[in-house]
């Protein structure tokens, strides 16, 4: 499995579609910086409290177009490099070749793991880059609670950590983003068992993401909407239970698909 994992990792990260995926994220980040951060440099001490990078970076606010575009389109972008690999392998002979050499279980485990890693990295790297870029322009001043300058409150997830150690808060929240988008990306692999259309496989994570958003909006439970609660500024506040349930629910599709494939008697699609 080690060799197969190495091969799949190379395939996922040494891939011409990875570049446009990263360009999207980094491009939005640079645009955001020029549109919203650069003009603020002369106004850092103009308000009640100095402007802080923690409240102005791409993940720290929810008023800009760039942050909305990022958190809207990142499920598609994450699936671009590797989302259709299962279907391509099944359509060609490489899937069968891998299975007869290594077995079905390592094959499907590797696929899920690599898609998780791809999704996590494509989602997190541009955010890290943006945070670094913003911190280079604005001071990373520890936000002050009670001034109402930040949307994070005590009811928010890790709210206390945000005001005590905001840098760790950002890192932990980016970890949560990585976990969620990585898990979401595994749906593109699982979709390969139910559709022969590679575009459907690539878009399945996005549709799941939108379905959660619509469900939350419909029943007025905005804590279900990942496009809101995944932002470090927490446009919608969620709980650990809901976050865990959504991640587990997403993973269950992947596990179900893997289980079904391994138990299939007639082999590859």
């Amino acid at each position, binding site marked *: 499995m080690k060799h197969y994992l190495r091969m799949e990792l190379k395939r996922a990260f040494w891939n011409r579609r990875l570049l446009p995926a990263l360009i999207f994220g980094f491009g939005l980040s640079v645009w955001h910086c020029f549109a919203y951060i650069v003009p603020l440099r002369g106004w850092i001490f103009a308000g009640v409290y100095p402007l802080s990078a923690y409240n102005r970076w791409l993940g720290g606010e*929810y*008023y*800009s177009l760039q942050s909305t*575009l990022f958190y809207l*389109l990142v499920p*598609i972008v994450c699936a671009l490099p590797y989302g259709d690999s299962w279907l391509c392998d099944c359509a060609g002979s490489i899937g069968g070749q891998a299975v007869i050499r290594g077995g079905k279980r390592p094959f499907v485990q590797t696929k899920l793991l690599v898609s998780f890693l791809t999704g996590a990295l494509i989602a997190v790297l541009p955010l890290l880059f943006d945070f670094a870029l913003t911190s280079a322009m604005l001071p990373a001043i520890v936000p002050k609670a009670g001034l109402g300058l930040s949307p994070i409150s005590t009811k928010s997830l890790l709210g206390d950590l945000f005001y005590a150690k905001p840098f760790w808060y950002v890192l932990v929240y980016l970890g949560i983003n990585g976990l969620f988008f990585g898990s979401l990306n595994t749906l593109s692999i699982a979709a390969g068992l139910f559709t022969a259309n590679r575009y459907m496989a690539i878009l399945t994570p996005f549709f799941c993401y*939108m379905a959660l958003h*619509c469900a939350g909006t419909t029943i007025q439970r905005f804590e279900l909407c990942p496009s809101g609660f995944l932002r470090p500024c927490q446009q919608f506040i969620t709980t650990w239970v809901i976050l865990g349930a959504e991640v587990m629910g997403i993973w269950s599709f992947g596990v179900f698909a893997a289980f079904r494939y391994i138990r299939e008697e007639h082999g590859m699609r």
Partner: protein
Amino acid sequence: MKYRNMIRLILYDIRYFFRQNRWKWLFAFMIHVFLCIRTFHSILFYAGSSDLLSALWQTMGGAREYLLSSDSSFQLPAYWFLFHIYLFFLIGFYPAGELYSGNGQALVRTRTRAMWLISKCISVVVNIVLYYGCFLLTMLIGNLVCGGTVIPRGGIIGLAGIRVAGKSVTELLTAFIFLPVCVSTALGVMQVVLSLFVGPVLSFMLNIAYMTASVFWMKPFFIGNYSMLYRQSWVSGNTNLSVTGGILRCLVLASLSFAVGMLLFQKKDILPES
């Protein structure tokens, strides 16, 4: 002779489209039913009585102008967005899919590439009109079931506070139906043409980004604004977003996309998708 060939090609496209996208159409119908149930539930809960215009407003209304500030929260109007992106998903994958998955068999049976592209654009327009038709029919049935009227009582769409009394039937039809269809058509043609060159997924993403930018910026360049009833000039008072201007801009965008697409498609090599 040429016209007959064209008509045959269009009929082929419509049939092929439906054969390839039956499940997508079924899902579109389910989305319309969901929007209908949710809309009428909301209207009856808050207003007590329903009417067709108020029901259409719930989906087609969109969002008021977004005023950017450090305190503001930019949110997309969920149902308007869902309605449009599903439409783009429905139509956007057809031409590139038919071209590459069929190995060009349909293409070589046409007389010219121009005919092929025209036929694709027309079939996309037909599907857009059918999509809107299906949505309107669903809302109409929902309204009938709820015993609602067409125009709201008192001439005001209660939940939005918009006065429609005094508006002619033509004006209402243009605002509620014709202009959104024009916008979807223009963007649909643009997406279809783009999909042949950058791929269906990227063209879909570009359309989503454009619609999002339309919500963010209330400017005539972003024609998505014309499909939001809140932003049309008769509601918002923004004279830059007039109905006539909207229709003209949609025509220009569709024509430009088609013309550029035609020029590039003539030179394109049809090779298997890698």
